[in-house]
């Protein structure tokens, strides 16, 4: 069907700003990244060589890459799971009217308003060995202080918790919006039929909340998979490379290791992972939601 405006200009022209923006900020960098991934460019020099698929082959033998990939999955899935569970709990608690309800919502949402880097630095004061808040409490209780971030695996899980706590407010807001869309009559009818709170939650609230959960899970998953600021502020990917995500690894390889070609190939890999995982999760949850409706 041919669409025209009043003056006879094709509606297609209205696509132009979007096409230009998309080309400049998405298509061109993507193609440029693909090109760089076939080179041994150091990231700043005016000369480089094309080395074929060497960077892609290297991915499969690089221990640092596998550690970062594993951590990325933990950051993505771990943060999403925590955020969803705590976010739904907060939403259920704070949808009911009570004095201080708005204040409580604001306090939970506040961390989401600051930059991840700042959140990371603030959190570091809690977990640092010397004069860290947690260690000070442990010393006060007569326990030995622990160097929390000195162990790579533990550092990864601490980062997951920090990230989840920062953005749980966003999840809560989405869930509250979802809960407000559920008609009270469903719960009232179930109550009259003798359904207990947990039964109503299991068979009415959660199923009807699935569209909101879908949105939230996909957004949180993408956010977790590309986690960067908190890692940089707390561990810079260390000790060694044990808490790198693929995002921080890309930054490390490009700017510190002077390996822009390899960094680009890892970047494209991350792009594929986010695209595939995001699509799978969205399709899965949407099918569930459709089934219920």
């Amino acid at each position, binding site marked *: 069907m041919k669409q025209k405006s009043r003056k006879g200009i094709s509606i297609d022209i209205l696509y132009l700003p979007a096409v230009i923006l998309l080309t400049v900020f998405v298509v061109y960098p993507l193609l440029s990244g693909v090109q760089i991934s076939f080179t041994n460019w150091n990231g700043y020099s*005016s000369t480089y060589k094309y080395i074929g698929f060497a960077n892609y082959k290297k991915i499969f033998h690089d221990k640092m890459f596998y550690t970062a990939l594993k951590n990325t999955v933990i950051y993505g899935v771990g943060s999403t799971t925590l955020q969803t569970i705590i976010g739904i709990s907060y939403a259920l608690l704070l949808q009911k009217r009570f004095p201080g309800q708005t204040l409580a919502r604001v306090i939970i949402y506040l961390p989401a308003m600051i930059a991840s880097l700042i959140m990371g630095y603030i959190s570091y004061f809690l977990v640092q060995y010397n004069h860290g808040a947690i260690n000070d409490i442990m010393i006060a209780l007569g326990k030995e202080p622990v160097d929390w971030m000195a162990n790579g695996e533990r550092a990864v899980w601490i980062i997951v918790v920090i990230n989840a706590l920062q953005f749980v407010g966003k999840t809560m807001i989405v869930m509250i919006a979802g809960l407000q869309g559920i008609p009270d009559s469903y719960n009232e009818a179930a109550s009259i039929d003798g359904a207990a709170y947990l039964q109503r939650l299991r068979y009415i609230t959660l199923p009807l909340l699935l569209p909101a959960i879908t949105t939230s899970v996909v957004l949180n998953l993408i956010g977790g998979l590309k986690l960067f600021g908190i890692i940089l502020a707390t561990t810079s990917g260390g000790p060694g490379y044990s808490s790198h995500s693929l995002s921080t690894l890309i930054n490390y390889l490009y700017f510190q290791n002077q390996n822009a070609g390899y960094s680009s190939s890892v970047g494209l890999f991350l792009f594929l992972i986010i695209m595939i995982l995001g699509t799978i999760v969205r399709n899965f949850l949407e099918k569930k939601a459709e089934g219920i409706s």
Partner: protein
Amino acid sequence: MRKQIKTWAVLGLAAALTASMAGCASSQSGSSETAAPQDPGKAQTAETTKTEGSEAPAAALEGEIEIVTNGNEETFNAVNEILNNFMAENPGVTISYTTQGSDYEQLMKARMASNDLPDIFATHGWSVARYSEYLTPLNDQPWYGSIEESFMNNIANDEGQIFVLPLNMDIGGLLYNKTLLEELNAEIPKTWDQLLEICEMGKAKGYTGVFIAGKDSRQPASLLDVSAQTFISVRKDADYPSQLLDGTFDWNNWAPLSQFLLDLKTKGYLNPDCVTCDPIDVAPRMSENKVLFVITSSMDLIRQAAELNPDAKYGLAPVPSLGEGYENVFAGGEREAYGIWKDTKHMDICSAVLEYLARPENVKKVCEASGKRSALKDINPDLGEIAEDYKTYADIRICPVFDRAYLPSGMWSTMRTIGSSLIAEEMTVEESVKTMETDYNTLREQQ
């Protein structure tokens, strides 16, 4: 059909835009390739303007320039004061002077990639290997003859060209706690074995043998870099430097150095929070008088610790050797050194600024603020107690900083990774050797 034509027109326009961006990028990189050697005529003009400017600066110079550095707070403040004086004497000149701290290298690499560099920038030891492509040769500057001859090999390329004005120099060695060594009745260690023995004695008394603030992975890397002088560089039984330069080095010879760092950790000689301690805590912890040694090139820590606690008396000694008969040396190289971007639009101002910075009173100020030796001749800064140590070890050789001299640009980050991993016990010695070897080969191929 018409709709299709318009759709293609939209896509065509977008493609043209993309192509123009690519064109911009390639023209930038093209200019950086062709303009690398300095045009002597241009340099001469700049020099002439500068000389006139120094005689009547207020009338001659006008414009705004950007200077960036990664110098520490003390150095930054000293240079900032000098630049403010320069601006007061040259009212037509505005200088934006900033420090980028630990993000400096990333920032500079991004700016090199886009060929959009500051008019003057600090080169932190890489004026030749990394930045020379973007810098103006400065052999024709009036201060050129003032540079210490012994220091020249740190900043000159194979053709003898220099690209920076070096104000002070890094000296890497062993900081030792005078009070604690006296208490333990120990001499200043000349060998690594002696150092480990003292660490063991100190451990029994609850002292930290070697202090590392590993939250910044540059700290363990710096320990490796300084220690490599005697483990690798000045070995009398093997010519490792030549092998590193020609690519024939057997990386298994790196293993003793990684093992040394790992031993420090496993034997309990490092501070318990060595992996996560913030560098800002080094001086305060040294001032508590419970730290025996710091292997570093940050000599200013001695002054900082003494300011916090006058009883915290630290001295500087050369890097311990592998054993009797092996040489003790210091590690040394450029520290605060400034070069001029070859494409600056204000060559006259930039040259005048460097000439102003090179004045003896200004170099002295920077050296005293940073606690580092001057890279120019006939400057006698008051460096406090450390001056005595410099005098004591005046005959000790100062060898070029290991990674800058013998490793390809980019290996510093690998040393950061393996250093941090070893003290966290997240990497074995063998893995560290393999990582060094792999990155060394990759980065050599880029050259």
